[in-house]
């Protein structure tokens, strides 16, 4: 983790195949730009995301991680993302307890919302970058 602090943030995103990953594809084909630090792991449904993955990502040096899926109610698997919402909400609480709230985010991004996707990830990236630099100065 240490040797990375001077680098730009690395963010791992877990994106559901049916909505968010589609949105990211669209962002690409619309040539929208977003930081290279954002890298996606494709999962069939956001409910596939085991909180362990997120914890692992952070401990292995990612500066942030996000889980993103279809809007509640839109889930291709009918109810999956309701469970995601609970699990990730809990995990966020846990991260909060360890004073690293900003390292985990949950997004709902539908297949059509390429721009929303870009806004969300860029926002998260900038936020973390800022904190990081602030940290360095301090």
């Amino acid at each position, binding site marked *: 983790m240490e040797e990375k602090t001077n680098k730009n943030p690395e963010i791992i995103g877990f994106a559901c195949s*049916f*909505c968010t990953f*589609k949105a990211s594809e*669209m962002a690409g*084909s*619309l040539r929208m730009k977003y930081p290279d630090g954002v890298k996606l792991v494709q999962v069939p449904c956001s409910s596939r995301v085991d909180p362990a993955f997120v914890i692992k990502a952070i401990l292995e040096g990612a500066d942030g991680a996000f889980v993103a899926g*279809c*809007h509640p*109610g*839109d889930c*291709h698997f009918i109810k999956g993302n309701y469970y995601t919402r609970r699990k990730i909400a809990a995990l966020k609480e846990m991260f909060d307890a360890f004073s690293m709230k900003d390292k985990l985010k949950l997004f709902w991004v*539908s*297949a*059509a*919302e*390429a*721009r*929303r996707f870009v806004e969300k990830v860029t926002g998260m990236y900038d936020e973390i970058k800022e904190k990081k630099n602030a940290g360095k100065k301090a």
Partner: protein
Amino acid sequence: MEEKDLSLQVRTADALSVESESNHDITPVETKRASASRGGGSDGSAGGGGDVSPSDRKVLVVGGGIGGITAALELASCGVKVTMLEEGPSIGGRMIQLDKTFPTLDCSTCTLSPKMVEVALNRNIELLSWAKPMAVEKVGQGFQVKILQKSRYVDIQKCNSCGSCSPGCPVVMKSEFNMGTGPRKAIYIPFPQAIPNKASIDKREDRPCKAACVDACPIHTNVLGYLKHISEGRFADAYMLIRATNPFPSVCGRVCYAPCEGVCNRGQLDDPLAIRDLKRFAVDHFDVDSLEVPQITKTEKKVAVIGAGPAGLACAHNLAVEGYDVTVFEALPEPGGMLRYAIPEYRLPKEELRKEIGYIEKLGVDIKCGIEIGKDITIDTIKNDFDAIFIGTGAPKGLLLGVEGEDSQGVIDGIQFLRVINSGEALTTGKNVAVIGGGNTAVDCARTARRLGSENVKLIYRRTRDEMPAAGEEIDALLHEGIEIEFLSTPIRFYAENGKLSKMECMRMELGEADASGRRRPVPVDKSEFSLPVDMVITALGQAAQTSFIEGLGVTLAKNGTIAVDSATGLTNVEGVFAGGDVSTGPAYVVDAIAAGQKAAFSINRYLKGEEVTAAWEEKKPEQLTENEVTQLAARTPQAERIHMPEVNVAERITNFNEVTIGYSPEDAMAEASRCLAGHIEGCIQCGECEKRCEVRAIDHTMRDEIIEREYDSIVLAPGFDLYDPTEKKEYGYGTLEGVMTGIEFERICSVTGPSGGDILLNGKTPKRFYFIQCVGSRDRQSGARFCSRVCCMYTAKHASIVKDRIKGAEIYVSYIDVRAYGKGYEEFYKSTQESGTFYIRGIPGEVIKTDNGLLVRVEDMLSGEMLEVEVDLVVLATGVRPRKQTEELCKIMSIERDEYGFINVDSIHPSRTNVDGIFVCGMASGPKDVPDTVASGGEAASRCMEYITTEGQMAEGGGRP
């Protein structure tokens, strides 16, 4: 098999591969038997579907909306072979145009696009876009169908939907997908999730002209393209298009000899277009310094370019873009060659040239000036240090007259003369100056001398004006500036008084036999000597190449001292050495030099990649219109003379070196450009830009519509619907008042896939006050539609809630007669919309009028009985549905009955059965439906269709339909 118990047992698909390569389409033999044995489904009296395998049945589904998609998918899952015809470029119908769907506000794209993908991947479904039935004939139980496959001009197999074609396309049209709220190009993919996700070209008719300009241009500039851009006011786009094939637009926009104009087909009607001047206009409206350097992948290879003239720099430019490390060697202190040192300021301002060359340097080209080969660096060193060499040293050497006294002081070579001036060195001209020659250089010298203050400047030329090589307009300019021309005369002796030139003796000429060049040779007339007082003579008799410095390379020379090259590739006889421009052709034009440089660059690139060197592009002779083509065109094209570019008046311009021509005003430019015949057609103008950009060579302008003949067992119609066009409702001012739009247009504006990416904008500003008018074109006798459209109430409620959600503090009014929220969860949705602060007004507005800050809606509130006046920014008309235009034609060819409104007739107990046995209908075609109802009707149609095709011939026993 029969014996097998039914306990869930698992086999691998491969085990079945005998019958099917894991396709879902074929019912394996034994499984069929199984079904037969089970439940005795097979014997005829019991409907007997069991022993008729659907896999050999074919069904035609017309329409790729959600209705058609559902029907097709259901049929395919039953094993039927389905052909789906979609009249447009992509399936998805109206639903994919929706931003959200009520009442759950689900994203329409998310829910529908997986289904669309299913259609694309389903092996039982053959999807034909741009296709529609032309003729249908019932043969026995089945149908003989002629399908019109419209050509999309893009090879759907090759296209990899990278989208690099569209940006280049100069034709901007309204996007149907966005209901005209946004633009698209003539070559386009309608929307990112389109299925098939392939480009197609919107080509309506053939180009009226032959685009001779493009063929005539040595570098095949996309003239049609940039004229189209200019005529529609997209000046920067015009420049970029020019730039794509020409590194020196500002030069060619000024001093090109414009072969294009000579052949311009419009010229056959009235005047040719001012192609060159319009190019300059494009340049004038673009800041070259702002050009960005493109993404370049560097290669290891190094290339040397000798000579920083147009040829050399063009070559360097293209090689740099290809990623080569290019060094240019120039003997003179500044780059540009003849452009810099021969063409006077008043024709080509140095600043313009500097910008263009500046960009080439930005590309990473290293221009070393003041380096003379052989003096400062040997040619061998270069040969050793670089992987390839391009020689473009031009023809700098002036020719001599070869008459007595030529060496006396005051006689100067033209090129020399211009170079001195262009270097900004002081030079005193005489009072009486004679310029010898009839080429552009001679003219430049004369006009320059005039500007330097010589009182009396004469041009001495051996032949008549007709033979003068100089450009006509240049000669005119010269005469305007009060310079005389002594035609048919040539100097024979110069006299000097104490070293200084004093007079020149000339001799009259007459034209004799034609010589090699085809021009009549001037023959001296006896005793016609006469003399002129001169204190300065400038000789401009032509130039020759200077090639001594490359002797070391062993390059073959032509007898006139130029380098012998293959003009198509720039190859010399020595490997790795290329040449082009004046150095190989002798004195010629700028654009030819650029072409030579580009061709060489192309060859060098291939050579260094180890590929076989071929011609960069094949030349095509400019075509002229035939006699009757001209007459036809003339008939439909109003006469319009060329609009000329204004110039500075003579008195003023001869006093300085400022540019003579002033340049077009945008209005004039657009007017002039719109004279281009190609621009007169709708859609694709076949400028070929997309072909240049498509790397997979998917574009094929030669495609033609085809007719496919097929046989089907049954047909399902799902042509869908159109929306009522409220233009006729004058009181609402649709089409005349800004800010009045239809529901579906508003939908596109809201949509994240729409023109503004989901921001609700009215010419750039966010509207705050909205008025939604329901039942426009529904429940309305005037517009001939008594029926209720069923969806408008809800989509209005949806729009209202979207607005509430996106625009804080928005004011929303809705006018209604009855709110018909009858579907599942609709009532609740309507209520919550109301509660979230949308004002529902019972009563339909009488009129909408313009006010200073918005639109005023006048409406009587039937509940309170009072007359309201509401001022808003945006008025959305919830237009009702209408049968899709095509429905009429479809029904005609299939002889299907429709009701008074044009919806297809069905009865409520057999909701998909038409009057023609075997043809079924689903979705809005048989009356307004919302999405779930359409989906259900799609399934219903599929079921009827399945019955029809699997039990044909057994209807009686089946006891199905009466």
